[in-house]
């Protein structure tokens, strides 16, 4: 245990808590509130599923088409992919996701004014409250992203089958999939962290006197 060093009169400095403590409290808080977070979670899942599906379809499509052409000399009808529009749609869905998470987090911070004020009265530092809220949304973001990625991979594979017949199944180039998933996980986590920045900062700056506020 690191002991406070500087003392003014009989007052010492508050110790910094280890990150593990913030993780523990954030997890506890999330478990209990999961029901309320479900909407946010769904936004993340949808956006990340969309991203992953489009990304993988774009990689699978050409490979499968070439393979089918080489095998059976079939003329495979290729739908015209409008990449510009897709990129636009993905960006939009990610933006909606960002705003949605940010909004949900902000509401949660405002609702929890008394809890935050009380923690400050009990000696919580600003940095601890900041970590608490950042961690909560990052956990939520990672959970949503992982679900979204799984869904996205399944959708992309299903789409290949629908588009190029069942023969396409064995031709799917799974090799690149882990990398796409990893990148998507990074994007999802970054977006949730970015979305949580402002609400977490708001929470950290809340005054301990908020604990006294009676009205909601």
């Amino acid at each position: 245990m690191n002991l406070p060093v500087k003392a003014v009169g009989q007052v010492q400095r508050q110790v910094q808590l280890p990150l593990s403590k913030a993780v523990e409290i954030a997890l506890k808080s999330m478990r209990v509130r999961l029901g309320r977070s479900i909407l946010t979670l769904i936004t993340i899942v949808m956006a990340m599923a969309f991203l992953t599906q489009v990304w993988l379809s774009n990689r699978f499509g050409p490979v499968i088409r070439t393979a089918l052409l080489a095998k059976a000399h079939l003329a495979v009808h290729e739908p015209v992919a409008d990449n510009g529009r897709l990129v636009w749609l993905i960006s939009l869905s990610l933006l909606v996701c960002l705003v949605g998470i940010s909004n949900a987090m902000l509401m949660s911070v405002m609702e929890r004014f008394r809890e935050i004020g009380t923690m400050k009265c009990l000696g919580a530092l600003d940095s601890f409250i900041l970590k608490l809220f950042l961690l909560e949304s990052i956990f939520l973001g990672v959970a949503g992203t992982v679900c979204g990625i799984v869904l996205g991979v399944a959708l992309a594979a299903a789409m290949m089958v629908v588009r190029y017949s069942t023969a396409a199944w064995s031709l799917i180039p799974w090799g690149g999939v882990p990398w796409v998933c990893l990148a998507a996980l990074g994007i999802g986590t970054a977006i949730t962290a970015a979305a949580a920045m402002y609400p977490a900062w708001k929470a950290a700056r809340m005054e301990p006197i908020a604990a006294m506020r009676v009205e909601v």
Partner: protein
Amino acid sequence: MTAQTTAAPQGREEIVRTINVVKEYRMGDQTLQALKGVSVTIYRGEYISIMGPSGSGKSTLFNAIGGLDKPSSGKVFIDEVDVAQLDALELAWLRCRKIGYIFQTFNLIPVMTALENVALPMIFGGMLEADARDKAKAILERVELGHRIDNKPSQLSGGQQQRVAIARAFANDPAIILADEPTGNLDLNTGKAIIGLLKEMNRERGVTVISATHDLKMLDISDRIFWIRDGAVEKIQRRDEVTIDAGQMH
């Protein structure tokens, strides 16, 4: 000032002193003076009630004493330390170790059990988890909730929640307990029990209790009563000087 000096106990250690504390709230072009220069001294181990009509400035004074709000002018000393001179880390330490807060709305952390709530300030203070839990259990037993330590606040009655809050306020063996209307949300008998418990803890631990209240039941057990009206201390009475007169409140 003269009322104060006659009412104050002699030869005891000072724990809180306010000097000419003024608090102004700005609302548009108007300024409201919620405190108009309050100077009081509180001694170690005293049980103080701050009484007065609604809007008289009890909570404002209380927040200034608790380091929760900065006065517009004047000084607040806690244990001879000028609160205004403290930086954020020192203030957090003060709130964690020197002061225990009890709220009208109980303010337990809803996602935590009674035990975890009581352990929290000790953990914020840097105590090891296992030690904090042991101590939390002992204090909860002291407030007669040894059988409910694993319950969430929503599973406890108002009176039980306030007992947990009292246990939490005492967790780090503070020098001062600040309670703003601790019985405000409780019925008559539960309120009595809570006041009784606060008084017992005040006696057995030598903790200074400062309570802002409307509750006349507090008069019986307070060492001194600060009567506040319109942001100023109207009079300070020792318990034996008080004649219970409900008319004073209105």
